[in-house]
């Protein structure tokens, strides 16, 4: 039963994530955190982080990670197959149609309207990740409950990303190192 659930969840993720990479993130969060509770928001953020510093698409990485955690290796396989199955079918059909008719207008028209929605959904998922980073799993957002060190690290990272062309992987590693440094210092003091 759990295999079927994993399969269907990742099938949806594979079927409705348009625009690659981050587009899958809100869908994964919806299925894995909100609907099924397979991961906590912190674990989900860890997963996104790990996906960022390793090769491979976020959706495939998530399928492996979540599948393994919930139902071992078979779970990972089932989830991965679920997440790539829609691609296999849809892309093959489109490739066949394209090789025959050489026309992609309709598809790209649909995509044009999806793009703004995808950006909005990525932003929404990003906000949840930041909320979790700044305020932990606390229900309410308050000034006193804010982890200011995280806000500071976030600010530095945004600056680094926008002002320098530093690779995002290094920015994230740096963020981790900064946090270790801050915690070590506050522990000593």
């Amino acid at each position, binding site marked *: 039963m759990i295999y079927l659930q994993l399969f269907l969840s990742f099938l949806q993720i594979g079927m409705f994530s348009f625009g690659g990479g981050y587009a899958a*993130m809100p869908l994964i969060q919806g299925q894995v955190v909100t609907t099924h509770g397979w991961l906590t928001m912190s674990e989900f953020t860890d997963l996104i982080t790990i996906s960022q510093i390793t090769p491979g698409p976020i959706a495939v990485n998530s399928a492996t990670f979540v599948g*393994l955690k919930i139902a071992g290796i078979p779970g990972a396989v089932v989830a991965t197959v679920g997440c790539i199955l829609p691609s296999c079918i849809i892309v093959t059909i489109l490739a066949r149609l394209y090789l025959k008719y050489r026309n992609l207008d309709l598809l790209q028209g649909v995509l044009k309207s999806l793009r703004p*929605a995808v950006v909005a959904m990525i932003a929404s998922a990003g906000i949840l990740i930041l909320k979790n980073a700044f305020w932990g799993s606390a229900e309410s957002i308050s000034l006193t409950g804010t982890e200011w060190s995280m806000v500071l*690290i976030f600010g530095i990272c945004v600056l680094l990303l926008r002002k320098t062309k530093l690779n995002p992987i290094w*920015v994230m590693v740096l963020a*981790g190192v900064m946090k270790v440094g801050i915690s070590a210092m506050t522990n000593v003091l």
Partner: protein
Amino acid sequence: MESREEKESQGKILWKIFLSTLYLSAFTFGGGYVIVTLMKKKFVDEYHWIGEDEMLDLVAIAQSSPGAIAVNGAIVVGYKLLGIPGALVAILGTILPPFVIIAAISVCYNVFRSNFFVAQMLSGMQAGVGAVIASVTYDMGAPIVKEKDPMSLVIMLGAFLAACILEINVVYIVIVCGLIGLVRTLLSKRRSGK
């Protein structure tokens, strides 16, 4: 005789597709767009298996289909070269490296997550990944805002409210916006057709 030779060379090409996609998938950081560019380098510039223009269209298919772009890219290239077997081999090559790497990492994750340094490192990286997403959102959103197409802005705002405030399942948002796009495209086609 000829068919046997053909079979042999087909096997060789399958093997080459597998190795190329395996290699690209294992060593490409930075997501689907990067890997698609590298695929073009490999299959168009190096092997000359696919024409430049055709590759551009195949990449467009990969990018406009749902799912991971790296996987979609592997499917179009594999399918174009050797049909379904080519596509299957390319998929296998593409998903094997992340599967193995993530499996190994999740074992370590369970062992080391409670370690103080690892926990702090991961927690700091949450702020980092938040920054990366903010930056990506800006890069993706700014051109749409600059275009000043009112419909796009309405879709963006509506989708944001639906996802963030109303917490509507994103699947529905994708379906609704896709349908809006379909209707718009068909309408504008009819208009230009007259």
